[in-house]
């Protein structure tokens, strides 16, 4: 119980810290885990929390930082970065920043400034990409602020602060220096294990189990969660499940664990169990969208038209401009097209495949690295007998993540349709690997 209380205090503090730094996704994860702790955990954590609250009260954030954070929350990143220029120690005042060492307002301001710059660059990059290229166009644009961020983080503070380390890791990823990035990110995760964003960035850098094994990781429960997620990503599903079991004992009510377990079952093609878990998840949290694309795939495979339609309407009502929502709606239209061939309870089935493609396309416009949307779009193009477009979509899927056998399989199938057996054989073989 004492452990649970300690975890409760740790996660509560982490939620506040992460929110302060604008790492909202990581904060969401931390709070999701927090809510998953056994019910008694909060009781023992009171005094730990009180100490933390007192420390925060003693060292209030300066008003400019508050304003910058408000701008940041409002997605005005460049403005936030500019506001913080006075607060955060710049690259040339490195010595001054070094004194303040790890935590405290200067480090926080520095991180927020650099992160704002980074995100401002990402925004620009996204805008450029949309402007310069069509959806399938290959025009790649780089984040224009990388240099500035790098310069900003080239100081003592950034050597110690776990959040700055994380950001440097992100920059290294963008620069293509994977080894550097792995080092920086695992250092960040070791120094501050509750920052799930660092773990996730690290996850993307581990193409196989060996790399994973070579990483210097802290002895912390977050490590178990990370390893479970990594196994899931690398399609070592049974191992992922057993690792999730461990995490589940610490966080028996966590939605994250349930969702991960459902994804593992889904990857193992254990649809019944996965469906049960997803339904549990939806019953608890009916407006959840994360992970529901996998659920919609299950419903698609089982041809549960009513349930899929219900899900599609529900996510459309919750937020129709999420990539997952678009993917679910795409699946819905695709199944409608298939159902239309069999029975016709709704009439008017022409062009459902086109609508499905349109929705997958929209999902990809919202998130270009959304692999399963690429694959599903490939499937739709196959249905539409548009082999070149299908091949292109599958190739994009493989580019995002070469580990997905479905895309390889789709590629093989398309070449088979085109009467190119050697190509097909080659890709099927890749799929097996």
């Amino acid at each position, binding site marked *: 119980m004492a452990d649970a209380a300690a975890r409760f205090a740790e996660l509560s503090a982490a939620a506040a810290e992460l929110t302060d730094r604008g790492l909202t996704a990581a904060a969401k994860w931390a709070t999701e885990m927090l809510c998953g702790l056994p019910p008694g955990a909060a009781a023992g954590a009171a005094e730990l929390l009180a100490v933390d609250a007192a420390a925060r009260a003693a060292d209030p954030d300066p008003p400019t930082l508050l304003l910058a954070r408000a701008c940041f929350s409002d997605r005005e990143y460049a403005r936030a970065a500019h506001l913080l220029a006075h607060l955060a120690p710049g690259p040339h005042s490195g010595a001054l920043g070094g004194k303040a060492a790890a935590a405290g307002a200067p480090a926080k301001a520095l991180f927020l400034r650099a992160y704002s710059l980074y995100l401002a660059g990402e925004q620009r990059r996204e805008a450029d990409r949309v402007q310069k290229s069509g959806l399938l166009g290959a025009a790649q644009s780089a984040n224009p602020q990388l240099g500035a961020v790098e310069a900003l983080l080239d100081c003592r503070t950034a050597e110690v602060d776990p959040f700055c380390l994380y950001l440097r890791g992100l920059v290294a990823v963008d620069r293509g220096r994977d080894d550097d990035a792995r080092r920086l990110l695992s250092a960040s995760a070791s120094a501050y294990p509750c920052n799930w964003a660092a773990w996730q960035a690290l996850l993307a850098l581990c193409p196989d189990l060996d790399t994973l094994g070579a990483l210097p990781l802290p002895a912390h429960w977050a490590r178990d969660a990370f390893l479970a997620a990594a196994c899931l990503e690398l399609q070592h599903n049974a191992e992922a499940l057993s690792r999730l079991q461990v995490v589940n004992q610490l966080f028996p009510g966590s939605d994250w664990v349930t969702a991960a377990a459902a994804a593992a079952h889904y990857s193992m093609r254990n649809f019944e169990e996965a469906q049960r878990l997803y339904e549990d998840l939806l019953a608890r949290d009916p407006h959840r969208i994360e992970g529901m694309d996998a659920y919609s795939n299950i419903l698609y495979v089982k041809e549960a*038209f*009513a*349930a899929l*339609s*219900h899900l599609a*309407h*529900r996510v459309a*009502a919750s937020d129709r401009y999420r990539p997952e929502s678009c993917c679910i709606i795409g699946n819905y239209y695709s199944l409608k097209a298939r159902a239309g061939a069999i029975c016709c309870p709704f009439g008017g089935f022409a062009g459902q495949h086109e609508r499905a493609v349109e929705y997958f396309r929209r999902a990809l416009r919202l998130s270009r690295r959304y692999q399963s949307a690429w694959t599903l779009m490939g499937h739709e193009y196959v249905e539409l007998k548009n082999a070149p477009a299908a091949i292109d979509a599958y190739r994009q899927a493989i580019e995002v993540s070469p580990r997905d056998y479905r895309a390889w399989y789709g590629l093989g199938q398309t070449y088979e349709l085109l009467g190119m057996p050697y190509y097909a054989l080659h890709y099927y073989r890749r799929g097996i690997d």
Partner: protein
Amino acid sequence: MGAPAAGPAAHAASLRALVQDCIAKHLYGTAVFFADKLVSLTDYGAGDVFLLAQTYYVSHQFRRAAMLLRQHGLMEDVRFRYLAAKCFAEVGEWDEVLALLADGEPDDLAASQSDAPAAAAAAGREIATPSAVCLLRGRAYEALDNRAAAAQWYRAALSLDPFCEEALSALLDHHLLTNAEELALVDGLPLGPEHRWLWLLYRCRCKKYNQAACMEQQLAELEAPCSSGAAAAVAAAAAPAGDGDFARRAGAGAAGAAGGAGTAGVLQPSAQRQQAATPSAAQQRRQQLSHQRQPPSQQQSQPQQPATQRKAAAAGTPARDTRTARRAGTKQQPQPPGAAAAGAAAAPASALAPAGGASPGGCGLGSNTGVVACRAEWLHHQGRHEECYALTERALERDPYATECLPPHLASALALGRKNELFLRSHQLVEEYPDSALSWFSVGCYYMAARHFEAARRHFSKATALDRNSAHAWVGFGHAFAAQDESDQALAAYRTAARLFPGLHTPVLGMGMEYSRMNNLGLAERLFHAAHKLCPEDPLVAHEIGVLEYRNGRYALAERWLRTALAHHAARGGSGGGGGGGGPAAEASLLALGHARRKLGDYPGAIEAYRGALAIAPNAASTHAAVAFALQLSGDAAGAVREYHVALGLRPDDTFAQEMLGEALREECERAAGEAEDGLGF
């Protein structure tokens, strides 16, 4: 079984026990096999033939069972005749049923056996056979479309044995009686004070018209946790019912103790069959729920008529008024009445309560699905859809097949526009119960919510074909036609519903609305008044009568009726604890009231009513134009100009407002010029 010497009697007895056991274990084929051998062994003894017939019955060989009973001339005993009649009922030969159950006058029969129910009630153990016979007669007459006779026999069944719930269900679900008759019937049942819970439950299941004063209290008493005394009473009375239930499920086998010719068990299998045969019986309650919601779409479907308007405007009588009101009126539809003025019903109710009914505690039935369904209907009646939906959803989560909760659930989902939920629920229902009218009714509701009236019509019609007595499906059918302005077909559907369910006011109201739409005001008036007689508390009825009087030019009357409608809305809104003033449904009444008052020359009053309507629907261009018109008539040209501008801002193509704005501007200028002249003159 090594010793063959056991006497034939013992042999027969063991076979009998075996057959009973087979029935209890649902091995009907085996039961038939052994019962068949048994009759041969005992040379067709009466009891054994009956047992064989019973086994035929439970294994669905109805004609064979009837033939067997008839062949052996065993039609003297009422129990045998009853079983044979049940068999004919199963195969739909209702004339045979009536021929078997020697006919009589229900009243005579009730009189002749008046002591029987007392005995049965005292024992409290079984349903009186004559009561079951009467119930079956009622079903036969109903199937032969002789509804008056059916109602009479159902009543007889109930008065012979108040525990014969199916008779009450048939009466209530098929709306054979008016509200007052239902209440009188329930109050007249020979239920002792120890059965107050049952009396309460019966009363709560009656139509909710006119019950504002007592319904809440009755439901509260049913739901309140038991006091020990009340608990004992319920348990005592429920025990036999529970046995019956079990026996029913066990196919009468549980009554094996009664020996081969089972005297006690006789009625139970029939009860089972009856249940199976009319799965929808419990589902047809509360049509009121299901209908309506005619659509705002009518607003689009009735085109504006600039020419008439202009003419009318010139004459100072916007013809549009009635149309607007009428149109808007269709939106709010027959919500069941909430109630004002139901005080009258309260007094007799408490006077008639058995045993003064002063039980301090409740009945502890709060979690019972039947009571939840009553509560849900009551909420729906009052237009508290949100609460009704939440309540039924919880109940359905516990028991997804609680059919009695489904109609209010579907109706409130439709009222709230929960299309997605309706979709999923309908799919599940159709998948699991494709033969149930309720499933298809649910699909119809979904299409109504999705505004695919054509498909809705198809599915409602399918529901009515599956179960002619499905009141809500009939009314929904009518509404689906009405939504598409198909007055003739809508009238036909409503007319059928009114004929089948004489106690129900919604079809009558719907017919009136259709006639009103077709400008047949005389007929419409008669029908509205008939609906008002059936259900005096429905604000929609009062509203429609008010609009009708308006169209007839009797403005004072119209004003009175509309105020009545608003009072009903307010009473309902008040009891609902929701927003004051009766919510969105009251808007049309307020608007119409404004028009009526304007006609009467009461401009401030009219403007007040319009403002009330605007508070509910602030963006209604026509209401703003109406305010402007009233202002103009009362001489405030400047105010009128302001309001006309608001109206035109909301709907630029409003020709009435355009034209009148020109008028108002001219008046305003002339007045200003006059003032200027006066000023110059002095």
